[in-house]
């Protein structure tokens, strides 16, 4: 049996895929958080970062492609494992209060929390990457531009501030972060287990590390929509952008004749 069939076909191998892709996705989640926390600085900081990323299309697109491959591997393997696990017990037990003895809640609902996070990722991409209008409950984000280094670039700061001032968007982001927290709480330590990095000495350390990392990620990500929704961050900027958009909006073709008359 070659290493490839061993990994792709065996139950243990599939867990290696889950652990490996999960670890890479965790690295992305951490990097993405560090990038996003720049929203707490001046608008130029995160816009400059976004501009820097967009000015390296090869880098960005290879990272996107890599992430897509990793995510697809993680999700398809999860679905395969779930099907295999379900098939292993065709007749279930009578419902009793006792079923989850010894098993943490997070560990029993990994597929569910994962699928909700997947739905969130799709929404998040449509929301802030594809800038699909009409799903953000606010302005058309494609209109938000700012000038950086003499070029017109997307105003990422403005999008985040205006986007998270919508209560249901912020709430959905918070729920998704809660589920991601739950998913990681079990996933991070279990990845060590799946690769065999565990014994009675290291397991308590791994669990502590998992707690620190997941709580830090949750607080970091939850802080962004909360602070913006509570108008702690960028409220003036949002009002300014909205006012500017309204001004631009009045110069629509339907109203321009009237405006023209006034200038006469």
């Amino acid at each position, binding site marked *: 049996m070659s290493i490839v069939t061993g990994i792709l076909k065996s139950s243990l191998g599939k867990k290696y895929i889950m652990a490996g892709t999960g670890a890479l996705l965790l690295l992305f989640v951490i990097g993405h958080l560090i990038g996003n926390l720049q929203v707490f600085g001046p608008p130029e900081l995160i816009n400059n970062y976004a501009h820097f990323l967009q000015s390296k299309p090869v880098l960005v697109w290879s990272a996107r492609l890599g992430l897509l491959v990793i995510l697809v591997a993680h999700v398809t393997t999860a679905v395969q494992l779930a099907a295999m696990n379900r098939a292993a017990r065709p007749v279930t037990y*009578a419902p009793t209060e006792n079923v989850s003895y010894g098993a943490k809640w997070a560990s029993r609902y990994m597929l569910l929390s994962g699928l909700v996070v997947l739905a969130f990722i799709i929404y998040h991409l449509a929301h802030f990457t594809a800038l699909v209008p009409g799903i953000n409950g606010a302005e058309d984000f494609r209109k938000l531009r700012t000038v950086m280094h003499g070029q017109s670039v997307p105003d990422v700061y403005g999008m985040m501030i205006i986007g998270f001032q919508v209560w249901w968007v912020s709430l959905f982001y918070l729920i998704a972060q809660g589920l991601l927290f739950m998913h990681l709480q079990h996933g991070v330590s279990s990845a060590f287990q799946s690769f065999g990095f565990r*014994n009675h000495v290291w397991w308590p350390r791994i669990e502590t590390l998992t707690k620190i990392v997941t709580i830090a990620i949750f607080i970091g990500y939850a802080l962004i929509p909360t602070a913006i929704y509570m108008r702690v961050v960028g409220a003036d900027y949002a009002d300014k952008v909205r006012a500017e958009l309204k001004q631009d909006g009045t110069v629509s073709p339907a109203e321009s004749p009237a405006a023209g008359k006034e200038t006469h």
Partner: protein
Amino acid sequence: MKVKLKVWRQKDRNSPGEFKTYESPALNENMSFLEMLDVVNEELANKGEEPIAFDHDCREGICGTCSCVINGKPHGPHRGVATCQTYMRSFKDGDTIVVEPFRAKAFPIIKDLVVDRKALDRIQFAGGFISVRTGSAPDANSIPVPKENADLAMDAAQCIQCGACVAACKNASAMLFVAAKVSHLGLLPQGQPERYKRVKAMVAQMDAEGFGACTVTGSCEAVCPKEISLDFIARMNRDYAVALLKGDPKPISGGGAG
């Protein structure tokens, strides 16, 4: 004391099963759970009904024959105890106790509470052995074994192959069992020659039997009558990864025996 039993009755592998409720006769609270079933069966036999079939042998917690999921938990309410050493004093007078067989695709029901656990035997046949020379027994302690390895190997060797780990796992996974066997032999010098071949063969057989994968919920560890640790599953995962990295041995080319 008296209890009400809600028991899974199934005539054979191919018939559909159902729960049936029985009132127990007066019981001594110091009876074991299996003795309680004996008393209930005696009454059923006297009434001309089919007694409840259940697995049992040593009744002292060392053979791994008894099974049953009692109120949703394999081997009953206690930690580190098999069904045969669960006593009626753990229940209250008038309780309804739900008794089910171990449920897994790899454990087909033979009758009532008796399931076919030969899948575990087949995993053992695939690799749970060592090669030793025949002849007179070697001197004791002739092969040095570090104390900590000997202790760990003994912890793993406690597995009595009852299958409660499979019954408890939400995925009906046999990982804890296979991990215990792989670790027990893999930790000792006598188990080294087949160490990597063994883990591959036993995992392959485990997958072929239709057991699920590990989600690290820890249910297996919680119900194991011998309290075998999840650490051993990590050890198996590690050995399997090393085995895959090492690859298959070089094939023998012609000629051969010298």
